[in-house]
């Protein structure tokens, strides 16, 4: 029988057209890149149309897999198709960028434009042509480009910050070292409709006018299935997970192990990650005679297996945003040892509940070694701290975090009809 029916009213969250912007994404396995892709995938799963924009010469795909339907667009034109004269000009510009990091005014404006103008203009053109409902820029270079872009329609702009604000806005060692860039990073923030910060204390850092725009948007933490937690076979193993870079202070961990290793001959320290300090850390391990007991493991696709096999996560980092390694370890029932003055870590690790916060005063290496020793000797305490980990991460389940994203993006406005 034919069934000629009137138009049904369609209601539910609005399906949005979203763009995530990040300067570099090709083959990058960092925490922010992972959060970006996981968020983009989860929003695509909820029916939103998602595009990822990057601006880089490397033509490689993202390290983390994209959900079917999520488009990755690299806004930077490939070098190969440029005219020879343009290629020479680009090479000259890049050598100038590398050589002159900081120049006096007014040349600094010229240098800044030469470095950043392409990203901002190309982003502007792309947004004007595609007209997404909202654009989410990850980390300062992309946020600056988004703030300056004038796509010709009222686009919703969101800045997603992935570190403690003082690191993103004031640390000359991070991002572009020129004072002009640092000044502009903060000066352009009022152009954002929302500033997404990882923790409530990061919101309080902003001046009152910006604080109103700041929304706490934690990273999502996937709970570990209880059957896996039950089956976890924890051995005499301490792990550390993170990029081999100065900020993670792996050298402090190696020095601490050199002091306590003799007392725990069965225990092993495995450091997962890659980075610029790999050779230096390897040399330090050899120098301390720790070969075989302290191992650099490189990158692994199966880090959860390690969280379930280890007894402790050592995380002596200097500062963090919302450290994924710490959240994943806690979700996997692994006690975490970190410093009390490390941003991010000191919010997620509750001293004496799901891990230990080591005092910053005095000899840090000695303090860290003492904290590790205490826990390595005391299995009962390790078990009790580990048992509290999964529950402490329940506020950050993917469903809750993606609901929050939809709320911030305006998708929760109910749409009647079509």
């Amino acid at each position: 029988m034919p069934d000629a029916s009137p138009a049904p009213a369609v209601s539910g969250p609005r399906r949005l057209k979203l763009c995530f912007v990040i300067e570099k994404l090709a083959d990058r396995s960092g925490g922010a890149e992972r959060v970006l892709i996981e968020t983009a995938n989860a929003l695509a799963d909820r029916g939103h149309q998602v595009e990822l924009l990057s601006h880089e010469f490397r033509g490689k795909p993202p390290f983390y897999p994209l959900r079917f339907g999520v488009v990755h667009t690299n806004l930077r034109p490939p070098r190969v198709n440029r005219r020879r004269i343009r290629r020479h000009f680009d090479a000259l510009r890049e050598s100038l960028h590398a050589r002159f990091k900081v120049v006096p005014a007014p040349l600094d404006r010229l240098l800044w434009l030469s470095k950043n103008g392409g990203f901002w203009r190309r982003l502007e053109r792309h947004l004007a042509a595609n007209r997404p409902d909202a654009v989410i820029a990850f980390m300062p270079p992309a946020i600056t480009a988004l703030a300056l872009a004038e796509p010709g329609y009222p686009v919703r702009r969101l800045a997603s910050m992935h570190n403690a604000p003082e690191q993103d806005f004031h640390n000359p060692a991070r991002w572009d070292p020129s004072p002009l860039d640092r000044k502009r990073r903060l000066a352009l923030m009022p152009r954002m409709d929302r500033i997404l910060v990882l923790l409530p204390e990061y919101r309080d850092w902003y001046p009152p006018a910006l604080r109103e725009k700041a929304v706490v948007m934690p990273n999502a933490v996937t709970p570990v299935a209880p059957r896996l937690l039950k089956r976890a076979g924890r051995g005499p193993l301490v792990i550390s997970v993170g990029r081999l870079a100065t900020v993670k202070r792996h050298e402090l961990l190696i020095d601490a192990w050199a002091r306590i290793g003799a007392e725990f001959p069965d225990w092993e320290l495995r450091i997962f990650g890659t980075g610029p300090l790999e050779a230096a850390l390897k040399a330090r391990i050899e120098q301390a005679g720790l070969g075989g007991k302290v191992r650099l493991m490189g990158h692994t696709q199966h880090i959860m297996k390690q969280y379930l096999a280890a007894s402790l996560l050592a995380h002596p980092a200097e500062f963090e945003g919302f450290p994924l390694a710490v959240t994943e370890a806690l979700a996997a029932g692994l006690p975490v040892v970190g410093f009390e003055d490390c941003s991010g870590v000191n919010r997620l690790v509750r001293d004496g509940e799901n891990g230990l916060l080591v005092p910053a005063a005095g000899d840090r290496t000695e303090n860290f070694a003492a904290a590790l020793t205490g826990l390595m000797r005391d299995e009962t305490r390790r078990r009790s701290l580990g048992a509290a980990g999964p529950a402490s991460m329940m506020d950050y389940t993917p469903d809750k975090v993606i609901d929050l994203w939809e709320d911030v993006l305006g998708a929760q406005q109910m749409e009647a009809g079509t």
Partner: protein
Amino acid sequence: MSRLDVLMPHFRDPEGLALSLASVAGQSWTGDIRIIIVDDGSPGADFRAVEALAAAQELPVVLERNTVNRGRPYTRNRLLDAIDSPYVAWLDAGDVWYPAKIEKQFEQFSRLRLAGEDITRYWITCHYDWQWTGRKPRLIHQDTGERQVRELMLGRKLRAYLWTLLGTAESFRAAGRFDERLPRLQDLDYFLRFVLGGGTLTVPEKTRALCLYHKSDLGRNAREIRRCNRLIRDKYNPHLRIYGPAFLRTIRYNADMLAARFAGNNGERLKQLYYMGSAVADHPKRAVGAMRHHLLRAGK
């Protein structure tokens, strides 16, 4: 039993719709078919005719209506919202499926499944007959080889026509929404997004034409098609640029020549000359080649 939604936009063409509906009813595929028609604000008499057609069908029909004319992309978005079956095919009022179309396309899905492929990442297109008003039908092959973005933009070996497709509901949802700023070429935009999002177009093996497309340029707005082509080039510029400057010149040339053809068929000679001039400026070498080809043909 597999279930299929056939999505049909309609505007002021009940006769064409009747032809299309008859071709759906005549399919050799034996699964459950549901037809969804969204009328894009046709005047009362036309809509009444559509209601009568819907009521006369043996297959289940869902009929929806835009209260005013909102354009094809909007209407297609309404059709996307109405999907309820796991498989989806499209058919524009006036175009015709040959009886084996859906059956052959489902066979291709079975082959993909047997090969261990994830079928949500595939759209099955098909070869088709191209029927210009007053001429004999011409068989058009869809060549679904590599570099599908490039081929879709060139539009010679692979063309973006929704009514050739069979896909899963999930695949059509993943491709997003139709861009309501594109009164023309919204199919091309939708296909490009599907392929860039990780999708692949494929054709059933060993088949000839599986549907018939009635083609006419009459009344098609030359300026509009040129504007739509420009918008698509702007939207996908970073993806198109990787094929090099010659490719970019070619697609600009093709767009101008298409606009010139529309203008010519509508009797707008000045506009036609303007667009042809623009095409020559886009790609002089290609223009000279095309002219030589035409002269040689005329000489023969």
